[in-house]
């Protein structure tokens, strides 16, 4: 069971990234807590996928696992595979992993300030990244080119700046430039705009959109904001409590979400210019790692829950071509 994009989308056929039945535990006080449970999806070259979910749903851990970046322990991979270019990352040698990190897959994170080294000039940090992956073109000119690519004004002057001299938005652009330095085929962005202001967020979204068109790289974007999904994603994966609950083309999902959680989440957010006086809140709290409910993990908060929902975990089923839902009662 591996949800794939519908065949008529014209991406090149071989998947760049395949996540198959990924299972990951966190060890805490001698207990193994399942953080990611049977997560499967594919990402074709050039495609863009959004992982959407709230804190603790396993979206970041899944994304970090692609380059084996989750420290282990406390994490433990229990099952499944992650294949990048057809090779399982769990069977790679440290050297091969090194080549995957940065070479094929690059990351950007939520806090650009925390990801940049405060004592080095930003130009040197990008140069360092170039030396590591493309030593032939590790030149000042290339650094300036990269900064131009991510839309930094006066790049010749900016390369001498230290990270603290730049604003949050500029720092995030530097991070993107560093990530792009290695010509990655897949950019994984973990909440890249959450720490930024709305107007700066709009700038970064435009930049990522533009870069996708120009470079043709794939994008795996992690977010909790459905607003960004429509802008950047071809397909959406919605996660809740370690599991995928819905997977579909983004236009389809935004127009007609089928899983009760996706619907509730989208409804609970006030819309700009909306008319409703009262929000439809989801009752209860996001379950913590280790205390996921039995059966369907959303059932205690689900407005449509029935008795059987608390008994067995529903399967993720393809209910329409390319639209997968983990709820047997999606039609109601």
């Amino acid at each position: 069971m591996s949800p794939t994009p519908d065949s008529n989308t014209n991406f090149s056929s071989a998947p760049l990234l395949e996540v198959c039945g990924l299972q990951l535990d966190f060890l805490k006080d001698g207990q193994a807590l399942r953080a990611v449970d049977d997560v499967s999806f594919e990402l074709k070259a050039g495609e863009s996928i959004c992982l959407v979910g709230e804190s603790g749903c396993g979206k970041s851990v899944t994304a970090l696992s692609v380059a084996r970046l989750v420290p282990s322990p406390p994490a433990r991979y229990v099952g499944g595979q992650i294949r990048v270019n057809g090779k399982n990352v769990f069977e790679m040698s440290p050297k091969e992993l090194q080549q995957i990190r940065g070479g094929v897959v690059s990351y950007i994170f939520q806090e650009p300030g925390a990801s940049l080294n405060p004592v080095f000039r930003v130009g040197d940090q990008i140069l360092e990244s170039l030396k590591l992956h493309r030593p032939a073109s590790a030149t000042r000119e290339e650094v300036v080119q990269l900064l131009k690519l991510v839309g930094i004004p006066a790049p010749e002057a900016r390369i001498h700046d230290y990270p603290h001299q730049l604003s949050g938005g500029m720092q995030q652009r530097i991070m993107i430039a560093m990530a792009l330095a290695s010509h990655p085929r897949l950019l994984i962005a973990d909440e890249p705009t959450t720490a930024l202001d709305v107007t700066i967020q709009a700038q970064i979204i435009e930049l990522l959109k533009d870069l996708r068109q120009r470079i043709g790289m794939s994008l795996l974007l992690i977010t909790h904001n459905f607003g960004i999904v429509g802008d950047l994603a071809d397909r959406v994966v919605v996660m809740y409590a370690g599991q995928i609950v819905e997977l579909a083309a983004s236009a389809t999902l935004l127009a007609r979400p089928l899983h009760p959680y996706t619907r509730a989440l989208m409804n609970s957010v006030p819309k700009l210019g909306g008319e409703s006086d009262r929000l439809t809140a989801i009752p209860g709290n996001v379950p913590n790692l280790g205390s996921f409910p039995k059966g369907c993990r959303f059932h205690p908060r689900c407005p449509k829950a029935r008795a059987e929902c608390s008994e067995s975990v529903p399967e993720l089923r393809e209910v329409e071509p390319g639209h997968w839902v983990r709820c047997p009662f999606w039609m109601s």
Partner: protein
Amino acid sequence: MKLLEVRDLKVHFPIRQGLFSLVRQHVKAVDGVSLQVEAGETVGLVGESGCGKTTLGRAIIRLLEPTHGHIVFDGQDITHLEGEELRRKRRQFQMIFQDPYGSLNPRMTVGEIIGEAIDIHRLAASASARQERIEQLLKQVGLDPAHAMRYPHEFSGGQRQRIGIARALAVEPRLIVCDEPVSALDVSVQAQVINLLQDLQRQLGMAYLFVAHDLAVVEHISQRVLVMYLGRVVEGGPSKSLIRDPQHPYTQALISAVPEVDPASKKRRIILTGDVPSPIQPPSGCPFHPRCPVAVSRCSQEVPPLRETSPGHWTACHLVPALETPQS
């Protein structure tokens, strides 16, 4: 009835530098803000980080010293109130904080946290009345009264925010400044807290000054919205008309930048260039002019005053014509 009136409020923070800690410069966090809050209404205050909205909120309830201007609460000028008088007055205006983890003392039980508020203003005649009041407050914010015995770390973010709300309610305030009360919460929990705040207002009739960066949330909860940029209010008006028909170029850009869930809406996004300038040396003239897509030369020289540009809707922009008949 006018509950709060703020007139030309400024909060400047000195930057001390050098050997003798001399004041060389000021951060002009709030630079001349006037606003009014009617009893029982909700006024939203939006803006991006560094625009001074949090500082303004804290100055209004006298957690920060204003540098200039006046705060009039219920007809009394509280700008320079001190000591016992101020402490007694504090009962009437409260705050709900952004960080549900940092705003509750981890060493006190929920009962002690709420009880502290009751004790300070001697609002309970006896120990049993105090206990009853704590339980009633917990029920009111949707928590189990038995939780009074527990410590903050045993609760989720949303529940802690409810505890913070209960603490503010304990003194029966007439105004609550809500400083980003939902931005640290999970999306699915935000709506619960927003609904709770609305329900409480309906029951108890206090006014809110709702400070947030999320336009959609502010629009949803507020009757009127003020947009701040670099320490000043650039636009203000009824929330529906402000969102539907923004007049200041900054507000327009801000609204257009909010990502839309609806894939069908293909609105034009105004992408602002550059970043918010430093509040230490704000630009001359209109603070927004260096990033403004429609700025003219006059914008860099004259500070545009906040003028009524359509009924009840005020804008600080040279390019937006004022109403023909200026009201007093």
